[in-house]
């Protein structure tokens, strides 16, 4: 049953990704060249909407959070490496499948590369888990925890900031 939920959720998400065109190489590179902020608009609209919804449900104890630990070594070094690969490929892991779905077949090479990359990482993991992945481990922390304030304060500020950012994007025609 879980698998059915998975595919249905994926279809809905893929449909919206295609309709907003964020799965395109040109749009992804446009973001990295600071010419086209479509991806930021999509991601931040998603984040703000889901953040409000999920934290309401969380306050009523209807959902549990699933946080990833903040390990600076892994997140910073891995994040930067990913960024370089992302610019070369022009798709991220999720959008590569979406791009394939709308006929952008160059995504196939990327998907092949990503499978190889996953294999290489699996080989390197025993070494990395003893080194990089032990550097700066702060555990599963959230911004409200670090600031010592209610999550609603952070959500309010974030929402205001995102709205202002969107207005700026539209003014600049990005």
């Amino acid at each position, binding site marked *: 049953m879980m698998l059915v939920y998975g595919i249905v959720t994926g279809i809905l998400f893929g449909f919206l990704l295609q309709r907003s065109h964020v799965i395109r190489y040109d749009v992804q590179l446009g973001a990295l060249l600071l010419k086209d902020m479509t991806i930021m608009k999509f991601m931040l609209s998603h984040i703000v909407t889901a953040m409000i919804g999920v934290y309401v449900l969380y306050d009523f104890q209807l959902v549990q959070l699933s946080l990833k630990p903040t390990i600076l070594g892994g997140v910073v070094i891995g994040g930067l490496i990913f960024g*370089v690969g992302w610019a070369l*490929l022009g798709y991220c892991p999720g959008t590569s499948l979406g791009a394939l779905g709308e006929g952008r077949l160059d995504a196939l090479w990327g998907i092949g590369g990503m499978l190889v990359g996953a294999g290489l990482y699996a080989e390197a993991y025993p070494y990395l888990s003893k080194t990089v992945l032990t550097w700066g481990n702060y555990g599963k922390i959230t911004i409200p925890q670090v600031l010592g304030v209610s999550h609603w304060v952070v959500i309010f500020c974030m929402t205001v900031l995102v709205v202002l950012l969107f207005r700026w994007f539209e003014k600049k025609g990005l």
Partner: protein
Amino acid sequence: MRNRNGWNVYVCGVLSGFVSIGSIWCVGKFFGASTTFVRSTGMIEQIFSPDRVASMPYFLKEMPVIDWQWMFVMGIAVGACIAAVLYQDFKIQWVPEHWRERFGLSVQKRAVVAFLGGIIAMFGVRLADGCPSGHGLSGGLQLAVSGYIALACFFIGGLIAARLLYGKRGNSL
């Protein structure tokens, strides 16, 4: 590059946010994509050397099985395909437009760079423990510190590499 035949991106973002809420509420599943590549590679390697895969720590951590996220990632391809066909947006293309303007028509050239980019991207994303979906969307919406640091690093790495690839002025794109 304006969005000619597409929907308003804010509307799509908000709607996808509701899909995310529904998934978290109904089945407790947060969006993510990159673990699926690990599981798939594990499944492929299993065909050739099952004993070795069974003893590798990373494949013990991320078992080579089909799970919710695996189906979610396949669903993205199906959903995008349905939308593209429905709205006459489906197009077979081996070389993206921006790429063609900068690097020419060669399919091989694009293939080599996309393949290498894929290797680098996946290695980095596993080290970071999440992709723009897992860290960016799911981490971001939970206000996770890791999500925002990851998102910043994704863009910093990407901005530098894109600038090197396309030149300072983005090659008049």
